[in-house]
């Protein structure tokens, strides 16, 4: 395994890369708070729509919602969630329902972990 591979592996297993997020948000805590609160409100809705799309075997919508989840998770520094959503988007393109269903619980568990960290941050920052 090369150093780059190792870094990538560490990166995708990180539930929340706070430092990278703050760097991108110019260390502006007000912006960070707004985006975190929006994510906490919006992500469950997106995950619900994704769940429905999987049940309906609607690959176009699976791709659309996993792409959207990938985007918002990456803005937040939710590296692990971003990586799984990205994989799911690729599986949707290939219409590979088995792999979509196999990665879905991982994505949900990663969201729960990220959600817990974000709520803890919002409640205890001040």
């Amino acid at each position, binding site marked *: 395994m090369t150093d780059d591979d190792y870094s990538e592996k560490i990166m995708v297993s990180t539930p929340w890369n706070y430092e990278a997020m703050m*760097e*991108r*948000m*110019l260390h*502006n805590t007000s*912006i960070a708070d*707004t*985006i975190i609160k*929006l*994510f906490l409100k*919006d992500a469950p809705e997106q995950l619900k729509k994704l769940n429905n799309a999987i049940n309906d075997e609607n690959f176009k919508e699976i791709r*659309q919602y996993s*792409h*959207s989840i*990938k*985007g*918002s998770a*990456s*803005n*937040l*520094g939710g590296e692990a969630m971003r990586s799984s959503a*990205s994989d799911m988007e690729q599986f949707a393109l290939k219409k590979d329902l088995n792999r979509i269903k196999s990665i879905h619980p991982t994505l949900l568990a990663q969201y729960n972990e990220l959600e817990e960290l974000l709520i803890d941050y919002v409640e205890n920052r001040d």
Partner: protein
Amino acid sequence: MKILIVEDDLTSRMLLLEFLRDYGQTHVAINGEEAAEAVSISLEQKDPYDLICLDIMMPKVDGHEALKKIREMEESEGILSTKGSKIVMTTALDDLKNVTESYKNLCDGYLAKPIDGKKLIGELKKLELVE
């Protein structure tokens, strides 16, 4: 500066809005269809956008189609693409392969997601929209 943000993802949209609000009047569209309508109105009013941040992958009309449509509308108003709105396409880093040569000629820059405030302002400086 008059700015149009075209983005279906809520967090990306709000981040762009937060970073750009200090630079001028900022409008928002959530898909390519709305973007084309906003541009059409701005051209009718002879008050075009200086900057359009355009997401590539969106439902309904995607960013590529919207880009083409916007340049066609500008052309029908006698505006050359070099003199039209500065259009920065936004896309996830692992989707950059979606950016094809033909579209590169129609837009002015690219911004890889996640949205990064420093990179965004750097792009605006490169396009000479801010100092």
